[in-house]
């Protein structure tokens, strides 16, 4: 009791993920999900996208966006399970599965972006 929690580590990732996702995901969805398919804006060609992603910084930015978003999901989903299903006794495995998924996803995204 009264020991300082390590929760700030996960909460910082959760908070950062929330900010990053709120700022970037609507724009990306609007562009790639609506504006380009409906022809509101000229869609970029494969070559130009390929050139864009060839920049290491762009790939790094994508990694940050998807990874932090995953951690945001993990934290929220953990508490949804924890409080929603009232599975207090399963706190450790639930946290392991949620954050583990986000970590696995981050590794997968990093490898994909690196070897692309």
């Amino acid at each position, binding site marked *: *009791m*009264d*020991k*300082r*929690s*390590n*929760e*700030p*580590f996960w*909460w*910082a990732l959760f*908070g950062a993920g929330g900010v990053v996702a709120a700022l970037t995901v609507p724009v990306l969805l609007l562009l790639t999900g609506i504006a380009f398919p409906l022809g509101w804006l000229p869609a970029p060609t494969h070559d130009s996208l390929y050139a864009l992603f060839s920049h290491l910084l762009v790939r790094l930015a994508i990694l940050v966006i998807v990874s932090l978003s995953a951690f945001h999901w993990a934290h929220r989903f953990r*508490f949804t399970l924890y*409080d929603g299903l*009232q599975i*207090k006794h399963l706190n450790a495995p639930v946290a392991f599965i949620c954050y583990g998924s986000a970590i696995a996803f981050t590794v997968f995204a990093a490898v994909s972006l690196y070897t692309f």
Partner: protein
Amino acid sequence: MTETDINTTIEEVATIELEVFRYRPEKASAPSFDTFTVPLHDEWVLLDALNHIKDEIDGSLSYRWSCRMGVCGSCGMMANGEAVLTCAAFLKDYAPGPIRIEPLANFPVARDLIVGMDDFMEKLNRVKPWVINENGKSVEEGEYLQTPEELDDYVQYTMCINCMLCYSACPIYGMEPSFIGPAALALAQRYNLDLRDHGNEERMDILSSDEGIWQCTFVGECSEVCPKHVDPAGAIQRYKVEATNNWWKSKLMPWSN
């Protein structure tokens, strides 16, 4: 006025039904509800109706109240499932009724509408809600000066009247009785943000423990029901940022202390 007139007048007074939670451990082991019909006056609040019941209908009804003006924080109850100060909730807003009156949720019931406050009092004490300043000025050195902006930083949290409505509204406290809870955390912030206070570091051990702010998932119901607009939910989120900065600093720069 003739007798008939008086009778007509009495009959014309609108009424409303109150379904009141009763628990008298010496009489019945299980709680039950008693239904009372009370006059529905525009200017009557729920507390007036309860006082009417106690004075005119059933003197055995037990409940806490004192100031009748939203200052003492002792008349909090559940009205139709919502935590309210009964001195600040008008009967007419519940018309045509019935109104279900229950003791504050998430607390043990001692008798009728009276709940046990021990858990809250113990938690309140744990967050050290007083000015901690070991090198305080002597009287001769004069008063502490504070700008209006510095006062604004915490003055909102000083409004808490310990009515515990926020604990009744908090679903986390309902599930995790060990959670320190909204009012105590907001009151801790009241002192943390006061320039005269130097107890921030001391309080962080309890505030940033697993039983403290990290139990909160920002449901926000505490701020919804707060009769004094303290906004405990906001206080807790704000403290999460501070505790997180502090945590990263202590891990990345352990020498800085």
